[in-house]
């Protein structure tokens, strides 16, 4: 397996990367950890003429406490997120998602920015950032813009990013004392991508769910928040019976086009979404 030839550019700064992107347009691809792009290039499913390496740009790899949110550099590896005590404490569903991506070697190289920008429908982070209510920071020629996670995932392998923009930072809100989150997945036995991944965040006030965020990956062509489950639980106490009821609503939206493949049929995926909604929410309930 050998990629087709390309020109290689090592960007030393975000600005340089943006100017290279502007110069080469759709002929160029950014590479960070390379664990989404390189496999496609080896199969020659992707044949960019120019590769812009942003892995070694200083200042893209960090996890910083900014008070009401945690800023994660887009170049931060899955392994760093998996092991971050700060995140474990303040947004634990993100390290939980990171810990089940691929395998240890993949987690050492793969980056959160790369995974999100690639927008694989079965990747783990998309559900996690949706449930977390993350904001994604993109920088382009015209400066910086902040994209809510809900607006980021457009279609299969397609995001709101312009081809001349770089995702530089992921901002995840810090959870309060009465909020808990979790991420659980049912992996494909071969690829270990999610057949269904469920991320959820629940806030309890006066023993009822005041805020509920439930997001799925692996189920449809993009990760999505499931308002059916969220609405059913909001305002309810968090117990097995309310969870069971809410989970029944998972993946039931009419607008949803559930993926189907040899491993999992539409029915089975929808069923797993309910099971994983229940299990994720039960784990949250047990964490209070």
């Amino acid at each position, binding site marked *: 397996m*050998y990629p087709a030839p390309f020109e290689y550019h090592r960007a030393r700064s975000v600005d340089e990367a943006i100017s290279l992107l502007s110069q080469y347009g759709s002929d160029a691809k950014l590479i960070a950890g390379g664990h989404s792009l390189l496999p496609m290039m080896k199969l020659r499913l992707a044949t960019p003429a120019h590769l812009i390496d942003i892995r070694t740009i200083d200042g893209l790899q960090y996890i910083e406490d900014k008070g009401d949110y945690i800023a994660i550099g887009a170049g931060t590896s899955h392994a760093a997120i998996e092991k971050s005590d700060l995140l474990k404490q303040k947004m634990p569903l993100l390290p939980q998602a990171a810990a089940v991506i691929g395998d240890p*070697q993949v987690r050492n190289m793969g980056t959160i920015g790369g995974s999100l920008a690639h927008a694989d429908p079965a990747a783990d982070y998309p559900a996690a950032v949706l449930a977390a209510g993350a904001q994604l920071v993109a920088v382009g020629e015209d400066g910086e813009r902040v994209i809510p996670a809900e607006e980021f995932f457009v279609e299969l392998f397609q995001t709101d990013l312009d081809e001349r923009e770089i995702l530089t930072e992921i901002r995840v809100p810090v959870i309060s004392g009465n909020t808990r989150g979790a991420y659980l997945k049912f992996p494909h036995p071969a690829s270990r991508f999610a057949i269904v991944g469920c991320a959820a965040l629940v806030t309890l006030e006066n023993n009822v769910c005041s805020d509920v965020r439930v997001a799925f990956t692996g189920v449809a062509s993009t990760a999505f928040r499931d308002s059916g489950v969220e609405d059913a639980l909001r305002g309810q106490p968090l117990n097995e019976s309310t969870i069971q009821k809410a989970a029944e609503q998972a993946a039931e939206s009419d607008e949803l086009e559930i993926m189907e493949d040899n491993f999992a049929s539409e029915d089975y995926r929808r069923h797993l979404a309910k099971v994983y909604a229940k299990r994720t929410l039960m784990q949250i309930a047990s964490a209070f």
Partner: protein
Amino acid sequence: MEIPIKLTVNGEVVERRVEPRLLLVNFLRDVLGLTGTHVGCDTSSCGACTILMDGKAVKSCTLLAVQADGAELVTVEGLAKNGELHPIQEGFWQEHGLQCGFCTPGMIMAAYQLLEENPNPSEEEIRHALEGNYCRCTGYHNIVKSVQYAAKKLNR
């Protein structure tokens, strides 16, 4: 257009000019002649190409050689010191952790990182840490025992 790279491989500084599309594993195998690192798949699945880059286990089939510029690499050839096997290598030998040997270098390097981070892993932790490395011969039974052997020896 070839690009100059400079890196450390098994403690030796290496400088070469490489084609950008050259994969790191092919750089190791074809350019440096370090054929202990193997290629078993084309989907970043099997882990036969696992090496250490700056102390982390990585799949060298999913890295370009140019991305390793400035890095410090250790391959299976760099583990034994002065002819003395590393305890992980010794573990694989003592516990019959290999049969055909093809996955073994990658398996050893993955185990290396595990034991760096977790000197006393449980069986479940060992199995989980090796999920990125395929073996078709051993059923993993003796690989688990090999890592346990190494952990014991390293902790002594």
